[in-house]
């Protein structure tokens, strides 16, 4: 029995020594999230426009109803999102929008530092999402 306790404690003590800690000195040190991490959204740009074709699948699938899209016709007669806004205060980062997108125009980045002072700053417009 003592042996088992000692074995367990040894694991505990191992983590006390430097090099074995899982926490980091945030914000001085930052972790790199996994590739599958679902952080801030990004609209994928193409040469002269966004890749998004305003098909309305993401606002339709969104369980938090945080995406606003308004489609329109550009000079070339193509469909494009005149308005594309994500309300991050409502977003639950489920990633359904990415999954639903038929043209891979939206992806989720590893940005997780999303705190802000103003409510308006959580409105991510098309221009901000394209960055």
């Amino acid at each position, binding site marked *: 029995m003592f042996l088992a306790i000692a074995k367990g404690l040894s694991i505990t003590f191992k983590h006390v020594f430097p090099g074995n800690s899982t926490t980091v000195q945030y914000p001085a040190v930052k972790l790199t999230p996994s590739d599958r991490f679902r952080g801030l959204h990004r609209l994928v740009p193409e040469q002269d426009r966004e890749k998004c*074709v*305003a*098909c*309305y699948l993401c606002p*339709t699938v969104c369980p938090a109803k945080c995406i606003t899209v308004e489609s*329109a016709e550009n000079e070339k007669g193509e*469909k494009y999102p005149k308005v594309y806004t994500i309300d991050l205060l409502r977003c639950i980062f489920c990633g359904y929008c990415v999954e639903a997108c038929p*043209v891979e125009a939206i992806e989720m980045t590893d940005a997780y530092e999303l705190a802000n002072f103003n409510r308006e700053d959580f409105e991510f417009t098309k221009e901000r999402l394209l960055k």
Partner: protein
Amino acid sequence: MVNLTIDGKQITVPKNATIYEAARDNGIHIPVLCYAKKLLPYGACRICLVEVEQMKGRLIPSCTTPVTEGMVVTTTSEEIVKVRKTVLEFLLVNHVIDCPVCDKGGECDLQDLTYEYEVVTNRFEGEKFDLPTDEVNPLIERNMNRCVLCGKCVRVCDEVVGYGSYSFINRGFETKIATAFDRGLHCEFCGQCVSMCPVGALLPRPFKFKARPWQLNEVDTVCGYCGNGCTVTLGILDKKVETIRFNDKIGVNDGNLCIRGRFGYSYVNSDDRLTKPLVRKGNQLVETEWDEALQVVADGLKKAQDGKGAGILSGARLTNEEMFLLKNLAKTLGTGNLDHSGGECYKGVTEGLLETLGVQASTGTFPQIENTDVVLAIRNDFYDTHPVVGMVINQAVRRNNAQLLVVSGKGGKLSKLPRAKTLLSGPGLELDVLNGLCQVLLEEGLAKTDGLEGLVALKQSLAEFTADKVATKTGVDADALREAARQLAGAGNAAIMLAYGLPYTPLSKELAVAAANLSLLTGIAGREGSGIYLCGEKANSQGAIDLGLLPAADGLGAQAMLDAAAGGKLDALYVVGEDPVASFPDRDKVEKALEQVPFLVVQDLFLSSTAAKANVVLPAASFAEKDGTFTNAERRIQRVRAGVPSPGEAKTDGEIIAALDAQLGGSLAFTGPEAIFAEIGKDVPAYAVNYTEIGPQGVVWGGEILQPVARKLGEAVAAPMVEGAYRLVTGSALHHSGTTSTHAKGPLAVVPEPFVEMSRADAATLGVKEGDLVKVAGNGVELKLKAKVDLRMPQGVLFAPYHFKESGVNRMFKTESVISVTISK
């Protein structure tokens, strides 16, 4: 009846049903692409293949195979699924997969089937189409890359609309749907093909990229334009009518619509709509609050009533409930001067039919027309004023081999239908031809004269209308006239169609009497399956007549009110939902009347030319913004449902009238349309229907066949022929209805401005080309109109529609139906 088994289920269906219909009616799902309820079976897509025990060895298309006794049908099996999947794979070989940008996505039959049958890979490879999209027309986008060649558009355009814009061209893989010479669409733009298309090959251009189908909130209501009363489904996004969808499952008129119904909705969203009450202060109309405006109106009307009197003139696009309230308001005010725009102008119904048949409505319903043997259409304009009934006539002609007879002063769509016989008379002489038909019936002993009153007097009055004399006067072939009369008399079932409306004011009573005479002599009136149809121009023309929105015994009618106002004998005029300056005959008189009358109140959607002269303008709501009922030209009472809120502070006519009534000390108050409708039922027995029981098909008061109360032949006095090298007539153009449609982008995109239509021969003589500005002078008025040259006009006859206020056609037409004019470049 036939008994058969489908998927182990014993069912009994009529013997003319197909396997598909039998399955559908018994809740068994068979997928289809090319099938449509209102079209004939075609069998183009091969999605609906099923197995039939008795026809083993091959799969049978269920939509084209009639049922037989003892048939055993299997609708799904491994083989069937495999075949259907293969058919989809074939379709997807060259169908472009642009679902994300295709507006059909979400309600696309091909998309749904692909999902249902899990077609995720394609074993076949082929080139995708790369055809240019048709962008020459303003309303219908044609993208042939998405076409699956089901042929629905081809068939609906031919079978239902009777226009025939489309056809298949080329062979094999190159097959596509094209218009004549592949030049792009140039048709009447009813949009029927758009509503039929199972994929995104045909789409409404005004709705392009506006919304996804699943985002739209759908509200079934009644089209607010003409008296057909077609069910329209408002497609609403964010409290705005974005498109009009159709309802061919439960709607009235099979979901058929015309350009006005399908594309004429945008006036509802117009920026020009009135949003606040306006009161004239000094020389200006100033925006004000409702309380003040209503106070001013109430005071003004009261003062006028204490003086020389006040008059109320209404349009015919108010709901029955609003008309009832208006009648009530007249009572509160104590005036008998009440009329709707039709009251005086549509004498045809209010007097003509009442004198002869004792009823004031069509005697049959529209679906019956499809099964008649002979259809007599008076004036080719019938199709232009009531396009969807015109489509029913087309179906009667094409499907049931009905003989179409047209009595008209000019050619038109109806004359072009197969086997149509046009008794082409001189302009304005249709009445002579009708009298001629009656005379032939009497002369040849074909008339059914039992129990008819006034036969002797009619015989005397018709002595002048022998076939030969009519032929000499009108130019109609005498033998053709006799033949037409015999066909009418010999028909098992027949329909006589007459449209009435503001541009057809002159002779409307006489025409109705002549048509009624004909219906009595042929026995059509009140016969099962037959009927005489008097179709009102506006959405609720019939309701206005049923409710008696007419002058009291001592009151003034529409024209009399205007006369009195012009002569300074009327102190106030309250105009609701009508623009008399633009639409009533004799504009000079109307303008004088409106200028002379000391207090003018106008209630309308827009600052119309009438409203511009008003002391107070009240902003009203359109048909898409109110609840209530309309009664269409076949006596069908239908529910109108609000889909969107009114812009700004605009209120429904009902709310305004009720508020005014209260202001004037009226004692009646209602909780809503339902309560008012119940009250109407007490006044008008035919309307004693439970409001909530008015279903999608409405309620036809008086039943499918309305029996005439009287059978009295009347005398229809013909007008003398108008002589002249060029004779001008007015009327309705297909793309417009009244003056409201001139605020709607759809109709305006096709017919943007007033025109004068002439024959090619005349154009050649005058050296006029299509689009040239010509001067048309007559009756002391000169009009400048764009020339439109086509084949339908007889030589020497000109036509100018009345819808556009800037045309001034109603300045020229005072009381006459035809005017001798001179025309020059």
